[in-house]
């Protein structure tokens, strides 16, 4: 039968990004002893997912912008609706592409380093489950199922973070796991409270019912949800866990975490602010949170002496940009935020992958141990410089465009807090450049110097042989991601078009609500004339 | 069933549970605790019986079945790994 006749495609495509990876995960685990089979299965599965998500994005954007199905053909208010709108599909595309690239990278690394620290038979299923969890979070139209989605990706991330069970990873893993457990608890509490007040966890239904709830109670629920998501998105003061957790993991793991996981939190915040609690009661609060996140984060980066950690701090800092856009609450702001998310996922992942290559090459990521890489390995130098400048918001890269959009939105709003945020954003951008330049100076230009006080650096340096050739299998996906990052600049026009339309849909919630509430009962998707 | 009877039963069970709980807390040895835990499980089972008898429904029978199994496994697993404990260890809370 034709999977794509008329509006039947959502029935097929929407579940795919979740079901297929899980299916593959089961398969790969059952085949724990056949690494090659595992490799084939997971690569195939994720490739199909990439194709599916791209198709979804195109069909959604070309079509009526929002599609929904209810799992098991139940009425969506009783069952669990999966919703594809421009926002979620865009997120899905970016995340699936990044996930695939990182998988390829990690496979190459595994091959090169003889499965160093990445036990394959665990790695594949876990990684697949992670990607399923991320997709689920983006697709779910049900608050409790969103929680489940979070749990899926978190559980997987716990395992990936502690792979190999070395001292450092167990320590970092513990911090990460416990904080995440707490955040889940907060989220779960919020869900219970929401159900108390409304008697539903269906997000579309909620956006209708919450309006009738006593505004004071609304505020409490609203803020509690924001706290829960804020931890995941790592906004100040809920962000301190992140830089302690990510850097110790294997490079590809760090990369995919840095790129994706926090963004899922940001995504949830967007939904909270637009679908569940429109009207921005928390707008001003978020503005200041955004400022604090940007500034404290980037100051943290300036103070660091290790590339991975430094990047982790820039990660936190730049979450601030997205929150800034959300907090503005205008179409322009949201659009900028959405675009920035897409940009940041790609670039942050790329940078961590490159750092992984650097670590493989030089045996360390400490600025004291690194040096004159520009001379020793020009390829890595270029691969680092481009995304680094992109991150620092140097034009014409996507980072600049995202920032431009956000600043324009801020100036449009024109209130004094907005201008303060604009200033903060500019300062952050300058300090980011400064931090990046620091890395470039010390790691790529300056000669490496002897540092006796850095014992663990020495340990690292001896861990892997220095100056090893970077296998093409790792180089290619990284380069590909660099190109994608630059490519965003080229296709920025249409991309911003999508994010603009996404922002529009988010602000007038009717497309989402109507589609979901009318959908499902018959199974399949239902058109809502716009 | 007569509410007075139910009230009496519940009262006795509660006191029993609290006393057993005290033993779980005091120990001194792991085995004392596991014994006390067994009593608590028994209290739960009997409590379920009281509830079932009072409301004349069988929905909780599976729960009772399982709990009957549970007490056994719990205490055996602790007994299996019981280790020699010095007296001053027992002293501590």
């Amino acid at each position, binding site marked *: 039968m034709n999977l794509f006749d008329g509006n039947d495609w959502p029935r097929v495509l929407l579940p795919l990004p979740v079901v297929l990876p899980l299916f593959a995960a089961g398969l790969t685990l059952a085949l724990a002893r056949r690494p090659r089979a595992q490799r084939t299965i997971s690569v195939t599965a994720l490739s199909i997912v990439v194709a599916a998500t791209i198709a979804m994005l195109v069909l959604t954007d070309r079509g009526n912008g929002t599609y929904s199905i209810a799992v*098991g053909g139940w009425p969506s208010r009783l069952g669990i609706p999966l919703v594809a709108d421009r926002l979620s599909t865009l997120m899905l595309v970016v995340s699936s592409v990044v996930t695939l690239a990182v998988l390829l990278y990690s496979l190459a690394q595994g091959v090169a380093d003889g499965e160093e620290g990445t036990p394959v038979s665990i790695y594949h299923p876990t990684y697949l489950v992670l990607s399923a969890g991320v997709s689920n979070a983006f697709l779910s139209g049900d608050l409790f199922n969103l929680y489940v989605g979070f749990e899926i990706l978190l559980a997987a991330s716990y*395992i990936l973070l502690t792979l190999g069970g070395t001292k450092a990873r167990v320590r970092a893993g513990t911090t990460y796991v416990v*904080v995440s457990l707490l955040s889940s608890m907060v989220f779960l509490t919020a869900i219970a409270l929401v159900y108390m007040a409304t008697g539903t966890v269906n997000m579309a239904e909620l956006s209708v019912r919450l309006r009738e709830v006593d505004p004071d109670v609304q505020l409490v629920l609203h803020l509690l949800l924001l706290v829960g998501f804020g931890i995941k998105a790592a906004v100040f003061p809920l962000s301190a866990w992140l830089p302690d957790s990510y850097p110790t993991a294997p490079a590809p793991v760090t990369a995919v975490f840095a790129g994706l996981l926090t963004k899922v939190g940001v995504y949830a915040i967007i939904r909270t602010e637009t679908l569940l609690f429109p009207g921005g009661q928390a707008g001003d609060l978020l503005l200041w949170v955004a400022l604090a996140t940007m500034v*404290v984060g980037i100051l943290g980066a300036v103070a660091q002496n290790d590339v991975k950690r430094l990047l982790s701090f820039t990660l936190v800092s730049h979450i601030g940009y997205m929150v800034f856009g959300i907090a503005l609450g205008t179409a322009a702001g949201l659009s900028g935020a959405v675009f920035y998310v897409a940009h940041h996922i790609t670039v942050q992942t790329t940078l961590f992958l490159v750092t992984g290559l650097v670590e493989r090459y030089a045996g360390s990521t400490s600025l004291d141990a690194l040096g004159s890489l520009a001379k020793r390995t020009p390829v890595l130098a270029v691969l680092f410089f481009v995304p680094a400048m992109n991150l620092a918001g140097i034009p014409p890269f996507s980072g600049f465009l995202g920032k431009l959009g956000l600043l324009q939105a801020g100036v449009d709003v024109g209130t004094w807090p907005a201008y303060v945020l604009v200033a903060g954003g500019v300062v952050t951008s300058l300090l980011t450049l400064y931090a990046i330049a620091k890395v470039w100076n010390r790691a790529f230009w300056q000669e490496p110097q002897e540092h006796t006080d850095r014992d663990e650096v020495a340990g690292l340096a001896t861990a892997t042989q220095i100056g090893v050739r970077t296998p093409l299998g790792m180089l290619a996906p990284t380069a590909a991601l660099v190109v994608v990052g630059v490519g965003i600049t080229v296709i920025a026009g249409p991309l911003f078009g999508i994010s603009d339309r996404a922002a529009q849909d988010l602000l007038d919630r009717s497309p989402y609500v109507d589609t979901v509430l009318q959908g499902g009962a018959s199974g399949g998707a239902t058109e809502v004339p716009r | 069933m007569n509410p007075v009877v139910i009230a009496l039963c519940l009262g006795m069970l509660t006191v029993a549970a609290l006393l057993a709980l005290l033993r*779980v807390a005091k120990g001194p040895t792991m085995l004392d605790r596991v014994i006390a835990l067994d009593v608590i499980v028994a209290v739960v089972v009997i409590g379920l019986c009281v509830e079932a008898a009072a409301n004349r429904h069988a929905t909780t029978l599976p729960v009772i079945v399982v709990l009957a199994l549970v007490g056994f496994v719990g205490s055996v697993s602790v007994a299996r790994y019981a280790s020699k404990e010095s007296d001053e260890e027992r002293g501590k809370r």
Partner: protein
Amino acid sequence: MLTLLLVHAVAAVFAVPLVRWLDRRAFTLLALAPAATTVWAAFQGPAVLRGETPEVVVPWVPSLGAELAFRLDPLSWVLTLLVGGVGALVLFYCGSYFHAKDPGSARFAAVLTAFTGAMTGLVLADDLVQLYVFWELTTVFSYLLIGYDAHKRSARRAATQALVVTTFGGLAMLVGLIVIGQRAGTYRFSEVLENFPTGPAVTVAVVLLLVGAISKSALVPFHFWLPAAMAAPTPVSAYLHAAAMVKAGIYLVARFAPVGAQLPEWQTTVLVLGLTTMVLGGYRSLRQHDVKLLLAFGTVSQLGFLTVLVGAGTAAATTAGIALLVAHATFKSALFLVVGIVDHQTGTRDLRELSGLGRRMPLLAVVGTVAAASMAGVPVAAGFVAKEAAYAAFLHDPVVLGVLVLGSVLTAAYSARFVWGTFWRKAGVPDTTATPPSAGFVAAPLVLAAVTLLAGPLAPLVDRPAALVAHDLPGEAEHLALWHGFSLPLLLTVVTFALAAVLVVAKERVEGLQARGPAVPGADRGYRRTVRAVDRIAVEVTGATQRGSLPIYLASILLVVVAVPGGALLWTRPWPSDVVLYDNVGQVLVGIVVVTAAVLTVRARRRLRAVMLAGVTGYGVTLLFVLHAGPDLALTQALAETITLVVFVLALRRLPPFFSSRPLVGTRWVRIAIGVAVGTCTSLFALVASGARVAVPVSIDLPDLAYSFGGGKNVVNVTLVDARAWDTMGEISVLLVAATGVASLVFRRRMGSIDQAFAAHTDPQQQDAPQRSRAQSWLPAGSTVDPERRSVVFEVVTRLTFHAILVLSVYLVFSGHNQPGGGFAGGLVAGLALVVRYLAGGRYEFNTAVPINAGWLLGSGLFLSAGTGLVGILIGQDVLQTAIIQFDVVLLGHVKLVTSLFFDVGVYLLVVGLVVDVIRSLGAEVDRQIEEEVSR
């Protein structure tokens, strides 16, 4: 015009291979790119001079107003010529400047070419965003160019300094541009300028633009980066720091002058900073010994001069500005190139060491002198014409005029100092030995010198575009020409030279004076202080916020919970109208026990004690579930609680029985305080939330559909395996992952062994397991347990109950759809059966009991559950849609099969897999590790 940029881009990309291939000769080839620009501009000349403005617009990001819009108006035309021409010459010059096989030269060539491209784009930009794009690009490229000698600390630092300072200005400018763009409703340069918005915001924006301009053009107080940037190779200085990049600021000022000059803020900023810079630069320049630095400070001075001229916003001043722009670009580049040659041939730039070069390289000396003369404003050279015009433009303003004269005096003086210092023979200094440069090497400066010399007599050529630029500016500009007759400007020129002569003659005394004179406050030191301060603040803030302690992180999160939602609650106090004390007395009684147990748990100092007390709360909660009519909950809770207890016992058996004693009792009270606060908040939240219930729960429609659509009587179970099967699928994948995680942590050897965790029944030691034989074995491997732990009673009972428990577990799965039970409960019960086997017979017994691979169980479980979803899709149903199949069978009667059962079976398998995995890891493998350590 886009093509020009593409040419540069391509050239830049291919520069590296080209240099690898042709070595230095490649530069000549690359020079063609800017040369092409020049030629193209030259051909556009007539049109432009006719007042046409060729345009090209390529859309880019419409929603940001960002597009590639190029526009060639007179100002752009002039600058394009300069940028292209000088660029071409410098690139050509590089061919001789770099030593053969210089490893860095390839990178350098690429970046320099890219830079010329960026510069061209900058001066052609007709879109504010695009302007900023190329502006920043020039910054980045200059960073790379200045840092050419990356191994030198001074080079790295200068590069960073230039980067940070100019980016700072650039970002300020960006904000300015955005404000203007948003207010004007367009980012098209020409349109913005036509109807320029007004208002305080715009005023601020204009000032921000100036910040960008002066930082880029190294005006006070940002001037310091330019001299430091002299660490760059001389061609860079000649191009970036004389002709091109530093002119970007001037260009911006010139662009906005027509609108900006209306604002007093603009006027003051431009005049004050410009004049200060002009004087300060000249003053500094006079005391330099490094001739390159002398030129650098000279440049600073001239940039100040230029700013004043193009920023004044009068026709006359602007005309003069254009003239000086051209003049300066030509003579200063020439001079830098000359210094480059000198340096290249002699190896020094210190005028105290240089002597008698004039005789050794006469051609070079001539070139240098001519260029210097133009700089000094000696008649017939371009510099002269420009200065005359400048004087003329400010006749109405004696103060400015006076300062201009002073600046020009200094200029003339350091020009002289340059010529003297570089080429003259000095008393007591031995003649510098040096080989004369090749003709090709001198060619570039020669051309530039020629241009600067001829531009004087041919001034009218420059006059036309200048006039066009100044066209609709206030005031009258007299035409640029060599000779205006005897006029005040001419007189001033004479004065200028007279004073300059004095300075030159009395140079020793002047130097002495400067040495004793007040050291001008070092803006550079200010910059460093700032950077250091930023770093310190960063350390302080990070040290304060990033404590690295998990408890602190958790505490801060919890405090946020208390402060933010809790604060909001206490602020608004939407207490519920009424509450129920309890639904039945049971809740209260159980509550007492649970609460007591919970409190005791907190006080526990023994691991297992805490665990058991927590277990008590768990069983209490089981009862609460029953009292709330949730048999499925109670069932699962009881089982989960027990499995948890077993896992605790297994995992903790090796850990010390006591928690390590607490360091601080004080922090303990803090912990408890936070706990109480959070607990209270939670309760209050619950009160207000349920008080605010607005509608009947959606689940009111669930039961009927559960039977009609889901085909089951147990609504909860139907919800789990059908209506919300999506949740369940996710949740079992969580279990799967958790199981793999446990294995990966306990089987800490390499992958192979973790596979064993899943493969496990082929335990290598299985065969050589200890044998303590008995006549009759009740359990296959019972005989492997040491008698200490062995009990025949236990074995016999296990033997009798094992299969029974399994039957029970299966029963729970199948009855689950209509009664309490289901996949989870069933799986956990089966798990308990296996636990019993393990406890009774040890790890060998367990491995014989479970000949199946845990990974296989887990995997196939998820495979089955997710598979049912996929199948659903493929056969044209909704994902995880349930079918109810009913049929009659002889003897068996009516059979009703609900397909969601398969899903539940998947769940069952997976849960069993989890238990197997846990026992195999925390049970069997840990046993093995213990035995290993004992045997060691």
